[in-house]
């Protein structure tokens, strides 16, 4: 069971509260987690990674176990603590100035 924490705007869009829990068969990677997340919540398609390129949107970051995984390859295995459900995968909106 994989745990994912979404930023508040995306929780609002998907109408969920708290963490998302996902069952994933096969390798647990950024791609497989996002595929499962978007499969459960289709309205999130295009909001975390681009509809077409599947690239992470520039102002979003992926964190887990105190590490920034944003620049890891999409198919790289996620840490064991994520796979076991001990730690959540955090999807964060980057802090940015402006309004």
């Amino acid at each position: 069971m994989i745990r994912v924490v979404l930023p508040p705007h995306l929780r609002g869009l998907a109408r969920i509260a708290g963490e998302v829990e996902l069952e994933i068969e096969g390798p647990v990677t950024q791609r497989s987690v996002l595929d499962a997340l978007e499969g459960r919540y289709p309205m999130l398609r295009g909001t975390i990674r681009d509809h077409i390129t599947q690239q992470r949107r520039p102002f979003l970051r992926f964190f887990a176990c105190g590490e920034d995984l944003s620049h890891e390859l999409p198919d790289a295995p996620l840490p064991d603590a994520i796979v076991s459900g001990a730690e959540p995968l955090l999807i964060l909106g980057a802090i940015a100035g402006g309004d």
Partner: protein
Amino acid sequence: MSKVRVLVGTKKGAFVLTSDGKRERWEVSGPHFAGWEIYHMKGSPADPKRLYVSQTSGWFGQVIQRSDDGGKTWIQPGTPPGEPTTGPGGMPKGESNKFVYDTSAETGRPLTTHQFYDGKQHPWEFKRVWHIEPSLTDADTVYAGVEDAALFRSTDGGQNWQELSGLRGHGTGPRWQPGAGGMCLHTILLDPSNPQRIYVAISAAGAFRSDDGGKSWRPINKGLHSQYIPEPTAEVGHCVHRIAMHRSRPNVLFMQKHWDVMRSDNAGDSWTEVSGNLPTDFGFVIDVHAHEPETVYVVPIKSDGEHFPPEGKLRVYRSRTGGNEWEALTKGLPQKDCYVNVLRDAMAVDSLDKCGIYFGTTGGQVYGSADAGDNWAPLVRDLPAVLSVEVQTLP
């Protein structure tokens, strides 16, 4: 008695303001989609309960929202008519919407490029929907003007979008360039007397017209003069801020350009300046009285470098002569220390008698006049910065 519904898009959510036909007391609903930028929301003339919203975010991208009950509930289009909008677990089934630019049928490569800030050619990249224009006759057909500038159409209630790529691909694309706010298609006018005729305006490219339902396009910028571009009378490259028409005279267009207020009496084939006695002819909004096709409204802004009203006085200017002769409308508007802006999609008129005029400011105020501009009062005054204002007149 008639009702009025004012749809307000702001930097941090959508608000719906409602009143009876007297337009004295207003109820405020919102924020809807709190925290998201609402570039535009507009109701369908064919079905006033059908509302479309452009919800966008620099972090999370573009979402189209739709209401089929006048704003009480919302869905992201993607659920076939008649099917439940939620799945077995109660989760919404709709999905956010894709805006994918056409590619060349011959090469499979991107259709064209545009000029970037550095003067080099740059590929089109989708950023957001600036303006939504529902069809005049079919609630499921809706147009979207987007950044980078292009026109899309959906015929299934906002679920699937197809580019009308004759606009971007007709040949002048490489000479379009972004203005300070990006390269956006912000104005879409549908001719009520001719379903084949569509006008659009792009910053900074100019105005364009289609006479075949959006398949082919041509620039309509003759008479525009822009000193800030290398060739001031060029076919394209003009920073048009807004175009308005009266539905009874769709061949007469009024334009607020970056600088200059312009008028065309021949469907955009040529333009003449009608700035007349305005204190400054820079501005963003322009609109036409619902019952008087020669009565036009603008909000002069000091300059492109100083986006606030001249002398700190918020004044709407009205011309009853189709331009050139303008009078300041000030009653109820702040006449000192006012330094807000009024953005291009933030003015609208209702169709009651007397005509109601509404506009929103970057300071979060929405002002309204129930007597064609003679007297003004704030409907609400502490919203986030207002990006867009639309009005529905309801039975």
